[in-house]
């Protein structure tokens, strides 16, 4: 194979910038990140880009490829035709630092606001018993590699900078759901989901689910159940303490072995 591709890459920093044109060699089997690396090695040694694993596992190399959020290391060049011009721009929702590198600190701040996992106080390490079927729901969400592309694409922040203070984006709504579905967690996060993380801003467009490189069903499996649970709490006073979820949790705890039993 081997051909010369036309690339447009956004270059600049927080004071401004623009698209630059490059012609660059492409070899068989390569991905977009290989091409960016070739640009660094041959034409633009100071081109800023984040990456780590080059295997779709760390979520560092997120950018917009022809306007769509993608992991550059998992986007094969063979998905484009040879005469196609490929445009690479930084994720739009987060402030640019330089070239393809953006300031994603928003995400870390939101992560810090989710109340942490809290196991039963009397449960000793080594005595945790959970059935596979019960951990699987949260395990799906724990596949998240924190590429932040879902947060990048969600219109509630992408088009509304002002919502950043009140809305945490799909990644962290999912984190709340994950903790809630943990069979041994003891904290009720419904109020913070509404008050601190703005679950109400989500209107279930599923754009986040579409871009997730881990194919996590963020909307269907995390956000909608979370919303339903909150609705239960708000409108059904009987469930205000022992909600559906908490009952499920207890049901699940009792499932396999004797829970909390010492070995």
């Amino acid at each position, binding site marked *: 194979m081997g051909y010369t591709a036309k690339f447009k890459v956004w270059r600049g920093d927080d004071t401004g910038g623009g698209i630059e044109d490059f012609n660059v060699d492409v*070899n068989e089997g390569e991905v977009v990140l290989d091409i960016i690396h070739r640009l660094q090695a041959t034409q633009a*040694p*100071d081109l800023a880009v984040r990456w780590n694993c080059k295997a779709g596992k760390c979520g560092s190399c997120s950018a917009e490829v022809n306007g769509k959020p993608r992991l550059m290391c998992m986007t094969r060049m063979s998905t484009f035709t040879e005469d196609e011009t490929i445009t690479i721009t930084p994720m739009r929702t987060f402030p640019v630092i330089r070239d393809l590198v953006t300031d994603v600190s928003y995400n870390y701040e939101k992560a810090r606001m989710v109340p942490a996992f809290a196991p039963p106080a009397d449960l000793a*390490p080594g005595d945790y018993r959970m059935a*596979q079927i019960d951990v699987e729901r949260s395990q799906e969400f724990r596949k998240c590699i924190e590429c932040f592309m879902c947060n990048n694409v969600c219109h509630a922040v992408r088009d509304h900078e002002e919502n950043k203070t009140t809305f945490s984006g799909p990644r962290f709504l999912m984190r709340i759901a994950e903790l809630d579905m943990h069979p041994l967690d003891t904290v009720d996060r419904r109020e913070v989901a509404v008050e601190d993380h703005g679950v109400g801003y989500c209107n279930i467009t599923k754009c986040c689910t579409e871009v997730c490189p881990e194919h996590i069903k963020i909307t269907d499996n995390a956000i909608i159940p979370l919303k339903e649970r909150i609705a239960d709490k708000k409108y059904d006073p009987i469930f205000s303490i022992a909600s559906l979820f908490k009952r499920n949790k207890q049901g699940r705890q009792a499932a396999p072995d004797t829970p909390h039993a010492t070995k």
Partner: protein
Amino acid sequence: MSEIERHSFDVVVIGAGGAGLRAAIEARMQGKRVAIVCKSLFGKAHTVMAEGGIAAAMGNVNSHDNWQVHFRDTMRGGKFLNSWRMAELHAKEAPTRVWELETYGALFDRTPDGKISQRNFGGHEYPRLAHVGDRSGLELIRTLQQKIVSLQQEDYRETGDYEAKIQIFAEVTITRLLTTDGRAAGAFGYFRETGNFVSFEAPAVILATGGIGKTFKVTSGSWEYTGDGHALAMRAGATTLNMEFIQFHPTGMVWPPSVKGILVTESVRGDGGVLTNSEGTRFMFNYIPDVFKDKYATTPEEADRWYTDPDNNRRPPELLPRDEVARAINTEVKAGRGTPHGGVYLDVSSRLPADVIKKKLPSMWHQFKELADVDITKEAMEVGPTCHYVMGGVEVDPDSQETLLPGLFAAGEVSGGLHGSNRLGGNSLSDLLVFGRRAGLGAAEYVEALPTRPAVTDAMLTEAEAEALAPFSNVGDENPYTIHADLQNTMNDLVGIIRTESEMVDALARLQDFKVRVKNSGVKGGRAFNPGWHLALDLKNMLLVAEAVAKASLDRQESRGGHTRDDYPKMSDEWRKLNIVCRYDGEGAVIEHQPMQPMRPDLLELFDVEELKKYLTAEELPTHDAGSDH
């Protein structure tokens, strides 16, 4: 001296992989103020890539397992060159460290009775690896990251400041350790984002910087693996140990070229995958070495029975320790029995139903589908050896992880000793937890006992700054990216999986050339997020590490674990008694020999004398006969 941001802490941890995070958690739990510094974003360290799992003798799947069995497996895997004290602590403490992760919120795969499930892995006698599918490293790093968040939340409730006790400095690269009167005094580095300088002044510094893979061409490692910690430690006056031992993982991807080296997890074999050559032969049966003869199946029938009846059959030879499998693949390919792209076949498609493969090996399925257009539920993978792990590393005290430089600690892949000449799969993640915690504890105790904090002077910072800026004033037109590529080829070709004297002599000569070329490599652009500058600085570290590896490899005249000499193909009892220690003399790496400590008698007793005879000299053998009940 330009503006330098100056911070002061009790403990500064360099590295935010499993080892660094566990160390930071411990130091904070001991009441210390901790900085965590890392080159990439928080949560992205190399640990995230680990697939197979964490080795810990919990005995959840096979109740015969216990720390003694794990200890024996680790020593055998390392061909008895391990620090036996570290191997002992590791085997004893790993289960507690894994259970602790559950209290932080980790969700491992479960056994039918609700305990943590454990899987088979090469060199481990029983199913021992706690795992989550094939993304165990992600679970580990996220769990520790989330534990740190929870500690920060505690600190916030108490003080109104999340960062009162733990502060994270992401995308900061440390370029130099600061020392005062022969003690650690802190670390100096730059913010990648701005190129501005920063110093962390602290009486205790913990190195947890990971490995050196990027000195080799074909590697499973990420860009961070430039051996910074090894080089920083040596320059500051500490030593490295047995740097010749480098693990080439037998199964890396070989095609397409741009992904060559990316890891194919050993779980593929643990879960039933088999290796065949272009003639369709399951060749590993021809490569069972004498020391392992009685532990591995000699026929495919017996090997296959083992998956369902491990108590009455011996394990398949595909699960031999990694050095054995990597050498076997290398030999098959050299003999002309390789695949079209220069590897061998690894097949699960004929062994497991498609849905089971997708369930057990989801990221492998994904990786091959997306990067190579190969559906592993329908066809075989092509695989070959890839540089994966460095067993050698910074020399530490086995109990506290302190290096020879007081106040400097090291844990995780950057430290040496535990794995001897070859690491067993799964023993790294457990290493990170056990010795990360011990380093955090060691550092806290050290700070506690220290009467006065070592001072950091302006002169020290000015010097460190000049060193970091040097690449900008180089005038030559050498391109750092080209030097890096040349270095990687040299190490791969001349100090790679099979070594010989003349080639290593050649490599050492080339390394001297590279040192000159680095001095002539100018940097273009400014200081803000400039990868060209970053690489120019990293190159200095890689060159020192490469020199240490090449010199130690040339010196050790035997083949053992991750060090195979064409000209000295046998293991030597006499060489086993020696550690090769490396220090920096102001110019480069120099080596010296250090006798190994003889193993404690109660640990020796865990082995049959017959087995010990394979590794130890006659005078080292114990007089006991432990019988055959192990």
